[in-house]
């Protein structure tokens, strides 16, 4: 019988660690707190959804903001006692069914003093600001009203207060149906007329089911951040908006309203698709299914000619057009260059191939694939060649002919074997699901060594392994085709998906392997039974040590746990 989740006790799970952790082998056990840490037990209201670390009273000590389904509360930190968790020092209860909230230290109170503030879009129609004054949320100030926006069902974090024009004043972004309304704030704290920009709002909704009982009903909404960067080299961030239908660029104005009411230039992706033609099964060439790539298009906004003004590259099937960017827009009257490639063009991108500091054009093609090939691949393994052609940047335009050709052979198993591998991976995933999750945390608790400490929450103990987790080196920002082991001197590459699948492994609790065989350097006994506990770190004061939340239980009546606050 399958439960929704395994209900193993952590005793069973701890068997994994027994080889690593001799029962009597701890070098230090402390029932009060960890060394250099002050222990503060807490019992928080059960309806708290999350905690945010803020310095609300701007005293240099981080405070804790609690968010529930209806209210936001603040627990202030003091230098002597830390936190008093008995009740929030101040709170705001929202009057609205749907509220999107944000925080900012960029707004002034009614006396014109800059204060840390809570901001909220109430039922999509008005924005209120609650400044923190004398340790309390003061009366709300209305920033905007008469809006027609949304922020999802219930109370949600809406990152709608952002400085869009680099003037050190945060502006407001109000989501609407498929658009974002941008309100730029002037020096006098008044707002410019709203600018509407299209947004690729992702909406996944199910309101009913037909027969399958296991499906839920509800909605997930996701709105990506807006893209702001200087595309015309005037030092002011410009606005780029991409949706399935349009590619819009709004250049910042030097005077007057920061953004124009209409985009400075646009590319109509619908019109491009109409020009290329819709997919039509009756027009499909069964001998060259990859010929369907002729219906694809892509748009790149990057500087090609080195004037620090972005130019525009439009690929339509195998035709690549380069348009010149200017300080005031984009010259779409005539392309600076048109390159045409035969074959099935997959994609293009820009990358400096020859090290001359100029971005070259990489055009990728895939060989024809027929229906017959696909039927054959059902049973036997196959290979597809993907070719890259490099057109060198000659300053103003690209070379007419490619200077280099790379071939990547993509080898893959038969569909039958692939399906079998998918089943294997799924079973591997099922096995991982059956493993008990042992809460772990990588943090700096001891200050010892260059590596991080590992904390493990197990058997009513927090066990600390000093200097045990070496952070993985960050991937190089300028890496290029890293999975191919790309070299400027090599033109033939191979990717063997069979090998990738064969070597596939899903691992849970992977940090524990790094301390296998080691004794914990410190441990803290907890007097509480852990029901669904966890560990989390935060930076609550100015020292170099992380502070530590140990959660015992998220229960019906309360959320219980302990805060270990580092002592400077």
């Amino acid at each position, binding site marked *: 019988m399958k439960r929704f989740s395994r209900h193993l006790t952590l005793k069973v799970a701890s068997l994994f660690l027994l080889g690593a952790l001799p029962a009597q082998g701890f070098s230090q056990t402390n029932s009060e707190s960890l060394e250099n840490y002050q222990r503060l037990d807490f019992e928080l209201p059960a309806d708290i959804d999350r905690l*945010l670390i803020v310095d609300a009273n701007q005293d240099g000590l981080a405070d804790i903001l609690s968010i529930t389904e209806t209210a936001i509360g603040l627990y202030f930190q003091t230098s002597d006692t830390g936190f008093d968790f008995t009740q929030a020092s101040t709170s705001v209860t929202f009057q609205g069914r749907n509220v999107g909230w944000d925080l900012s230290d960029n707004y002034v109170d009614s006396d014109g003093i800059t204060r840390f503030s809570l901001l909220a879009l109430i039922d999509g129609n008005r924005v209120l600001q609650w400044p923190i004054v004398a340790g309390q949320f003061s009366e709300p100030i209305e920033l905007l009203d008469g809006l027609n926006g949304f922020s999802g069902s219930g109370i*949600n974090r809406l990152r709608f207060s952002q400085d869009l024009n680099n003037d050190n004043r945060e502006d407001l972004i109000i989501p609407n149906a498929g658009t974002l309304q941008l309100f730029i704030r002037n020096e006098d704290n008044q707002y410019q007329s709203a600018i509407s920009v299209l947004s690729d709002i992702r909406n996944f*909704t199910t*309101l009913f089911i037909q027969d399958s*009982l296991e499906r839920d*009903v509800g909605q997930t909404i996701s709105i990506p951040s807006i893209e702001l960067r200087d595309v015309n080299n005037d030092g002011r961030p410009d606005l780029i908006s991409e949706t399935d239908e349009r590619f819009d660029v709004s250049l910042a104005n030097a005077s007057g309203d920061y953004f124009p009411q209409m985009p400075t230039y646009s590319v109509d992706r619908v019109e491009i698709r109409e020009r290329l033609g819709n997919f039509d099964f009756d027009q499909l060439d069964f001998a060259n299914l990859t010929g369907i790539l002729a219906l694809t298009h892509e748009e790149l906004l990057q500087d090609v000619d080195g004037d620090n003004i972005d130019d525009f590259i439009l690929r339509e099937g195998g035709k690549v057009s380069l348009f010149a960017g200017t300080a005031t827009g984009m010259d779409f009257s005539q392309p600076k260059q048109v390159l045409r490639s035969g074959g099935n063009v997959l994609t293009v991108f820009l990358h400096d191939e020859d090290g001359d500091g100029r971005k070259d054009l990489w055009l990728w093609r895939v060989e024809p694939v027929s229906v017959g090939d696909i039927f054959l691949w059902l*049973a036997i393994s196959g290979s597809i060649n993907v070719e890259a052609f490099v057109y060198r940047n000659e300053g103003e335009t690209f070379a007419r002919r490619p200077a280099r050709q790379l071939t990547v052979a993509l080898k893959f198993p038969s569909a039958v074997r692939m399906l079998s591998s998918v089943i294997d991976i799924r079973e591997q995933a099922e096995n*991982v699901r059956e493993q008990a*999750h042992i809460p772990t945390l990588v943090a700096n608790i001891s200050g010892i060594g260059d590596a991080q400490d590992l904390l493990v929450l197990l058997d009513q103990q927090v066990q600390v392994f000093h200097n045990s987790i070496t952070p993985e080196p960050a991937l190089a920002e300028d890496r290029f085709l890293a999975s191919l082991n790309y070299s400027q001197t090599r033109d033939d590459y191979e990717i063997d998906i069979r090998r990738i699948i064969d070597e596939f492994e899903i691992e849970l609790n992977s940090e524990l392997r790094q301390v296998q065989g080691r004794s914990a350097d410190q441990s803290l006994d907890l007097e509480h039974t852990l029901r669904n506990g966890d560990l989390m770190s935060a930076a609550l004061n100015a020292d170099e040590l992380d502070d530590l939340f140990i*959660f015992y239980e998220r229960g019906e009546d309360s959320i219980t746990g302990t805060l270990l606050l580092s002592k400077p």
Partner: protein
Amino acid sequence: MHRFVLFSLSTLLLSYGSNAFAQANFTATQLSLDEWPESLYFEDMDGDSRKDLILPRWQQNTGRELQIYLQQANGSFPDRPSRLVEIKPEIIAIAFADLRPEPGQELILIAANAVFSLSSAIASYTDNLKPLFEWDLVAAVPDRRDVHVFPALTDFNGDGLVDLLLPGIKDYGLFLGGDDESFSLAYRFNTVNEDLDPSEVPLGSARFNTDLSINERDGIVLRVSARGRSAFDDFVSDWTHNEQEELLRSRQWRPSAVSRHLNADSRPDLVFMNIGNDLYGQINILVQDNAGGFAAQPQWQGPIDTRGDIRLMDINGDAQIDVVRTLDRSNEWDVQFFLNKGASFDFQAPDQVMKFSGYDLDVSVVDIENNGRRQLSVSYYTIPVINAVRNASIVRSQLLFQQGGNGQVFNSRPDFKLDQNFSADTLRGLSSQMNLQADVDNDGTNDAVYVTDDGTLAAKSIGADLRIADTPFWQYVPERSIMNFGVEDINADGVSDFFLRHSSALTVLVSQP
């Protein structure tokens, strides 16, 4: 501007083939659309007892709208929409219901916090839109391009007026329809088990992050990582902005509920699945009482293994809904049948288990002779390696089972099996599964309708022994390739009609006497 090109063939197509069957005549209307007709509906919008074609569409300039093509007396459809209904940006979902005295169905428009009615016969919202009631829907944000369309509404209390079962933010609401377009909230119920202590609520499976991408930095990336779930995921964080973070991410979900007949009376009941107090999956049944009410708590609850697909269907023809659970292990499938025992089930002991081997198993129950006696239809694909190497083919198997004896729901061995081979040359036949729901020749027995290897829509008769005939008795040769097709009685003559989806066109075949 949307482009319509219509080929209103309005042609009477004669069947050919076996003379043993009545000929089937159809009027064909082909509509060319500028994109794939993803969803389409047939409802009688003008009250002439003929169903009309409704296409929800979106255009960059005009936004969302319903295009309504009224069916003509000869079964054809006009070359342009007869009615256009703008879907205002606030509307999240719609439903069809006959609410007003004027002939035809009206639209029920469902927004985040309120429900309205609207007649499609009036070209404007002015003097047309009528508020019905307020309700905080579980979804608060409309989709810019799509509008959700509820399935046919249920008359819960048998008064001849449709009722509305709507998911809300906190619970479900059942609104009973009354006279003069009135609706009253008659019953609320929560599909979430509130008796569970949050600390006991299972956290679900480990989370898997899958990364499959091609980019210039990494080349080709295939990466899967696992992370255990915690009750405190993302519980503590710093407030400062991260440029990579989304502007908004909101999530609101709850277990779904559906209305079905769970017992022998004529009143629909309610069923939903959630997590029981024992942390197992739990089926909950709310039975409608004689007075048309529901109890505060489910009359029956039972644990069920939640792995696999759990589907509701009447498998034994007693007009009470049963449960079919399908579980796959590799390409081996277990299908478990649980019969309804008076609005209760024994999920520990399936009434029958059947095993199949293949890919993409499809299980359905059909009433081929339209006599209430159910047959089991099973189809799946296999890829015989030797055949594939030799002539590159895939096999689709169609199995039919009669109801069984000796306590078995269905016979353990198929009464009929048809293997169809598909190769690169016969690709068109793979586009759609064989459909057993249509009675093309109106002889009272359903036929097997399928797309032939050369792309023709064809029908074969099914014998009393469930044998599907070797040759078709009816064919329709479409002008364009069929991507898939559906069956619906569009003109209420008891004879099955068809709609055929093409790449960017639609053909509607309406039977004629």
